[in-house]
């Protein structure tokens, strides 16, 4: 296979990101609508989306503010939802650590579930990619999603009236996240990590400040790592016994 050119790697990123348009747009419209219903202006809603780019945390913050929770609690809960971004940052470090600081800052700002997951699975499939190619893919994956995230938030804020409940836009979030993750369940270790995380997330759903999420995720990661180790050892032992 000839080495991929920058242009084709960018196009690969765009193709990987493009399916998410289907769900990011309704999700962003929903945020715009809910935010204006909560009394935010179009400008405030857009600033919120532009500065934070994390839908789940934005919804959490909005809901708690409407319940008049103390500001510290609002921030703490929303940031707990976003703790996964620190895990993404750690997982991207082996790939982008060598880039200049300002480029790492750009990547950090653009790290969302979609850009992270599509990039990491592409990097696993193309271990030969250079730093530059990885970066090109990452920005390619952002290109179809993030501009539309802002535009659709604005559109939702301007529509500003109730979208029929029958459209069930709330379910755009689970659908997008499940669609991201299902193709990534490649090995028994991946499946175990996901199952353990799901079981704990459901069991700990009652914990305050969304703390169940980071705990469930961490234990899921530990379970995945453990299964990977066992699988490696069994493979080694199997070879030693000739079977």
């Amino acid at each position, binding site marked *: 296979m000839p080495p991929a050119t920058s242009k084709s790697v960018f196009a690969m990123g765009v193709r990987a990101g*493009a*399916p998410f348009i*289907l769900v990011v747009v309704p999700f962003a419209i929903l945020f715009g609508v809910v935010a204006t219903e*909560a009394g*935010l202006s179009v400008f405030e809603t857009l600033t919120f989306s532009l*500065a*934070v*780019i994390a839908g789940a945390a*934005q919804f959490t*913050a909005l809901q708690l*503010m409407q319940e008049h929770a103390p*500001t510290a609690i*609002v921030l703490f809960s929303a*940031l707990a939802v*976003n703790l996964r*971004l*620190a895990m*993404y*940052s*750690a*997982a991207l470090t*082996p790939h*982008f*650590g060598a880039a200049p*600081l300002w480029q*790492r*800052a750009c990547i*950090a*700002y653009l790290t969302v579930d979609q850009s992270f*997951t*599509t990039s990491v699975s592409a990097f696993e499939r193309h271990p030969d990619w250079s730093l530059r190619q990885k970066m090109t893919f990452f920005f390619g994956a952002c290109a179809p999603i993030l501009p539309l995230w802002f535009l659709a938030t604005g559109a939702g804020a301007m529509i500003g009236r109730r979208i029929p*409940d029958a459209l*069930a836009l709330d*379910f755009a979030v*689970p*659908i997008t*996240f*499940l*669609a*991201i*993750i*299902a*193709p990534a369940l490649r090995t028994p*270790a991946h499946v175990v990590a*996901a199952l353990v*995380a*799901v079981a*704990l*997330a*459901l069991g700990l*759903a009652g914990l305050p400040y969304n703390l*169940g*999420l980071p705990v469930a*995720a961490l234990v*899921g*990661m*530990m*379970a*995945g*790592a453990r299964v990977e180790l066992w699988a490696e050892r069994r493979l080694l032992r199997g070879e030693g016994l000739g079977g």
Partner: protein
Amino acid sequence: MIDKATLWTVIAGLALGSFALRFLFLGLIGNRPLPPWVLRHLRYTAVAVIPALVAPMVMWPKATGGETDPARLAAAAAVLAVGVLTRSVLGAILAGIAVLYPLLYLLG
């Protein structure tokens, strides 16, 4: 109504906090090599975090007041099944939509 001072404090705090979380490792560790056991855990970041985030939304959707909804449950199962079998994000999304709306219509 949300108080404006609270709103802007939350927007600014959440913006700075989210960027700090995103930049934490990428910015501070940079090119220093991470130990193998850390890398082994990081490989499972996405497959642990995202299912943990989604599971409560699927089981107890806010839109139904937290009551388990067969249409949403079936749609989630369709997304997962098609995603695992075809490895196609787009196929999985379309399968979810194709199951969700008819069932919402029939059961609702």
